[in-house]
């Protein structure tokens, strides 16, 4: 299997300060990779650098090959066709991931239209509407017709996140980057969204880059993990090995912390 995303010696600097250094990993098509670490460890920056959307003032070095094309140092214009076709993203905060002044149906339709135009398929009103309702149905949103006519502030957080996933899927990407997609949601909704993501990734044979600081969540969602700390990779490997026999001190402490939290919950009445 060829790698969809291949990162070699990635470093990210801001004003002389190194935020991420010497990060190397790759995601093969259909593979599910978890990127874990505490806040500020460079998880999200790595993901943004992978699609060439680092905030202004940050500079990336090293090499990022996305769909066989070099992202580091590329002009923005050259990256536009790559985005959407190869990669789509789901963000942490479903409230800001949707345009507050656009109805859900139209937001998803924008993404659908970009894809149909790209693929040279018909993009008349009826085809697009059907595709939108179909997508809303696939992310298990109840009453797709009603949701499509709703404003983002009229639906719940979990529903918003589903709508955001529908938008990401509308592009039919080969790689889905999920940046802490469940952090802002309550536990029940978290589980539902994780199930949904897992099912969609399997059904569509998409690759998944799952970013989280929540070990149990990552353990269920991915095949392989990369552990980041202070912008460096401390450990990577299959999820079972890393979590059962962590070789690095930091991973050990992460796993131990997650375990003791679990134990504390069990002891509590």
């Amino acid at each position, binding site marked *: 299997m060829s790698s969809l995303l291949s990162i070699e010696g990635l470093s990210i600097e801001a004003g002389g300060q190194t935020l991420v250094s010497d990060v190397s990993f790759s995601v093969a098509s259909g593979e599910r990779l978890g990127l874990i670490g505490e806040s500020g460890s460079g998880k999200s920056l790595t993901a*943004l650098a992978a*699609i060439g*959307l680092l905030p*202004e*003032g940050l500079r990336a070095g090293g090499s990022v090959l996305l769909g066989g094309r070099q992202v580091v140092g590329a002009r*923005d214009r050259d990256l*536009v*066709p790559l*985005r*959407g*076709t190869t*990669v*789509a*993203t789901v*963000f*942490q*905060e479903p409230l*800001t*991931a*949707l*345009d*507050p*002044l*656009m109805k859900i149906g139209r*937001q998803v339709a*924008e*993404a659908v239209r*970009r894809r149909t135009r*790209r693929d040279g398929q018909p993009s008349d009103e009826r085809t697009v509407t059907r595709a939108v309702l179909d997508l809303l149905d696939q992310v298990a949103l109840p009453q797709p017709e009603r949701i499509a006519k709703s*404003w983002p*502030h*009229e639906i719940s957080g979990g529903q918003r996140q589903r709508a*955001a996933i529908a*938008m*990401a899927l*509308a*592009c039919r990407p080969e790689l889905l980057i999920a940046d802490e997609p469940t952090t802002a949601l309550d536990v029940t909704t978290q589980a539902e969204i994780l199930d949904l993501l897992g099912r969609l990734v399997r059904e569509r044979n998409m690759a998944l880059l799952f970013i989280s600081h929540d070990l149990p969540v990552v353990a269920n969602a991915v095949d392989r993990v990369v552990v980041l700390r202070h912008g460096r990779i401390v450990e990577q490997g299959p999820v079972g090995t890393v979590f059962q026999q962590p070789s690095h001190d930091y991973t050990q402490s992460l796993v131990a912390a997650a375990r003791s939290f679990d134990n504390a919950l069990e002891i509590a009445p």
Partner: protein
Amino acid sequence: MTDTSLIVASSEGRTRRSWAFTAGAVIVGLHLIIGLLTLVWTPYDPAAMSGGRLETPSFAHWAGTDRLGRDLFTLIMIGSRIALVVGTGAVIIGAAIGITIGLIAAFASKTLDDVLAAGLDILIAFPTLLLAMLIVASSDGASLWTAIVAIGIANSAIVARLTRILAKRVLRMDYITASRISGTSWLGVVAIHILPNIWPTLLVNLALQFGLAVIAEASLSYLGLGAPPPNASWGRLLQEAQGTVYTAPFGAIAPGIALVLLVIGINLLADGLRDIADPTRRRRR
């Protein structure tokens, strides 16, 4: 319990706001109708001496006459038209320049953005009227169009600064990144996401700018820098009435009332506009 009281409170807020909007719309609408009417009909010929000098309001002359014996109500009606033309023109010019510069600054590199932001702050530090006076003074001569352009340019700095800040705030949102990732170009992002999202706030500000432009034009005319004599601008009427304000105060009061009424109407309208432009504040159907 809390839920119910919240609903009651917000619906009261809406009623109050929609009342303001209706009142504003009626006042501005009245001025608009009067302004349009003057194109085809006025009670008297604005230049004709249709009555005695400095008459008090009567049935024949609703607002009395000025010191040349011209019908004041006719002049105030024409003043309405001039005020609306100046307000509209200045807002269009201010918005076109301001939104463009604001968007450029929001997207620009840090250096260019800093330069533009500093330039805007310097421009805003000048009072609008002073800036407009400088522009009029440096042009060929006072005319209605110079006044419009001058006020428009003077107001554009405020629009630009607001646009820049609003656009920057929207640009930081995840949905912009998501849209970019799915392959939207920057121009597409501006059209699809940024303009619709900054529009409600911008619209309210533009409506307020309209009111400020009306006042600025009256001030320029008062100072003799606005529309030259045959045009009966409210500012000019005020200035002409100044000499006789003790003997015939109504000559100053009448255009003053017209001016204040229009500006209040515009402000009320601006208050209500936001609710219409922003769906998150719209009443649920």
